[in-house]
């Protein structure tokens, strides 16, 4: 509007255009999300046209007409698509947060032993013959237990904390891995398949997706106000503090939030490989490392990836359902390698 600063030398690619680009990227990702939802809702053993899909969704708002398509979409496919989107978003956001927190590009939501703890809890519950609800409960307790263990052991303040946190997490994860292997080898034949499926990640059991979506929205909304401070954190702790960032409080927020998001995701869909590691990197390679754009973009991209992967997992070799974690890795790895070779920096 008011271009009063005629003397200011504004480079091409200046801030206003950078902000416009951010909006463009996010708008593109929202479109991708809509496309992923449309695919997920229409594809399956009973294909549904786009027109019928709209009718079914609008019918749901107006009370419903009771056709079989509408019923399948509303009670089966929609919850599952929303769940996949929400958990993909949770994992990608948690991964992006962990990468900033640990300032380590190899960090993912599971690096601090959260998924290991969840796996021990869930497999313990399966081994004990628990029902689905107790398996989730066991996974959540295991995830929080591992988080508290790592945080308690690595607690402290100083430049060594980052490395110590990472090392403690890796060691706890290794311990959990050993416990998981022990349980698998001791488990009776009939339960091993369920245990393996849990370990590979599976969104089919996610029947109540809306709390996860709500948590995703709340999580993103509570970290976005600190996005510029997170940018400073990646410039080094001393510099960030000198610029007025309350680093200890910010780290606590990021650690707590990242752990909670991961614990909820891992509880419901298991340990879905690569989403939390690769999606933030994909987004970073494509649009840079400004957390104000990276965090929402990674959240959306994670949701899109998991929603699409889950749809593929249940349709590609139907009626067999593949573990979604295998699909995310199969999609994510080539895309990631392609982007990496395209950007020789």
């Amino acid at each position: 509007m008011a271009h009063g600063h005629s003397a200011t030398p504004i480079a091409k690619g200046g801030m206003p255009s950078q902000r416009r680009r951010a909006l463009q990227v996010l708008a593109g990702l929202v479109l991708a999300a809509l496309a992923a939802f449309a695919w997920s809702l229409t594809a399956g053993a009973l294909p549904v046209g786009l027109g019928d899909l709209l009718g079914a969704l609008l019918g749901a708002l107006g009370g419903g007409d009771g056709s079989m398509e509408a019923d399948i979409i509303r009670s089966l496919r929609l919850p599952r698509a929303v769940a996949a989107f929400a958990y993909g978003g949770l994992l990608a956001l948690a991964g992006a947060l962990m990468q900033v927190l640990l300032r380590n590009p190899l960090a993912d939501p599971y690096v601090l032993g959260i998924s290991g703890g969840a796996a021990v809890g869930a497999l313990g519950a399966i081994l004990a013959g628990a029902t689905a609800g107790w398996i989730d409960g066991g996974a959540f307790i295991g995830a929080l237990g591992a988080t508290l263990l790592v945080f308690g052991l690595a607690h402290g303040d100083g430049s060594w904390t980052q490395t110590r946190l990472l090392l403690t997490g890796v060691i706890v994860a290794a311990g959990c891995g050993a416990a998981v292997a022990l349980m698998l080898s001791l488990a009776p034949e009939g339960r091993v398949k369920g245990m393996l499926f849990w370990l590979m990640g599976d969104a089919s059991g996610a029947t109540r997706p809306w709390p996860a979506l709500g948590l995703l929205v709340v999580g993103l909304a509570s970290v976005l106000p600190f996005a510029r401070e997170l940018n400073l954190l990646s410039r080094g702790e001393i510099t960030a503090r000198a610029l007025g960032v309350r680093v200890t409080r910010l780290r606590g927020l990021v650690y707590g939030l990242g752990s909670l998001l991961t614990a909820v995701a891992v509880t419901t869909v298991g340990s879905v490989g690569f989403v939390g590691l690769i999606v933030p990197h994909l987004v970073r390679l494509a649009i840079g490392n400004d957390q104000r754009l990276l965090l929402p973009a990674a959240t959306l991209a994670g949701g899109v990836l998991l929603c699409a992967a889950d749809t593929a997992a249940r349709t590609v070799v139907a009626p067999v359902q593949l573990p979604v974690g295998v699909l995310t890795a199969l999609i994510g790895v080539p895309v990631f390698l392609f982007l990496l070779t395209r950007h020789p920096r």
Partner: protein
Amino acid sequence: MKMDVRPPVLAAEQLTVHVGRRDVLRDLNITVQPGETLVILGRNGAGKTTLLHTLAGLRDPARGLVLLSGQPYAAWPRGHEACLRGLLAQSQPDFFSASVLETALVGRHPYLGRWDWERPEDEAIALAALASMGLEGFAERQVPTLSGGERQRLAIAALLTQQPRLYLLDEPLAHLDLHHQVAVLDHFQALAAQGAGVVMVLHDINLAARYASHVLLLDGAGGHVFGAAHDVLTTERLSQAFGHPLRAVADGAQTLFVPT
């Protein structure tokens, strides 16, 4: 409450600094007035960086007070201290790639609200700071493609973008070639002439002698000498502080200190 004289940009009163349980500095009293340049000299491990961080308010002193523009750090509104004093850290980690312009813009953080994005004015300030460090045309480059000296000048440019009244510089000449060492010191001399206070840790005694108005010489055992540069910089004191004999060589009006 109104004072006729502006308070010193920085003052330390009876300041004692610990590293672990060791006093590296006891009972320091210094003031830095606008226009003054204080150079901190001392051997490795003498506590120069720790002192600088204490003066920056990032570390609580063991005893004593640090006053920024007349007030303790705690008395300033949260975040406002970053508009008054800036710190150049000793090392510049970069774990993820960022453009040179983005990196220089971090200095505008204290001036922006929580939801603000950098305005064109901020960008103009950052571009001017980059130009003053000889980095014009680098704005779109990625930081990992820069050389060590270029990164150091970028870090200084980010500090200049912050536009504080007090500059605390931890080894500002690290990685810089001779030409840029002098250019950087000239730049801070000019800022001091405009009323800024400058405190810097240097290792080059002769550059210290050339640019410092005051010198703080640390012996690493708690003792120190503080005063006008020409009073503190003597061969006896320097030889003792650095644990290596030095001799003075006259070069016109200047005295150069050369290790024997």
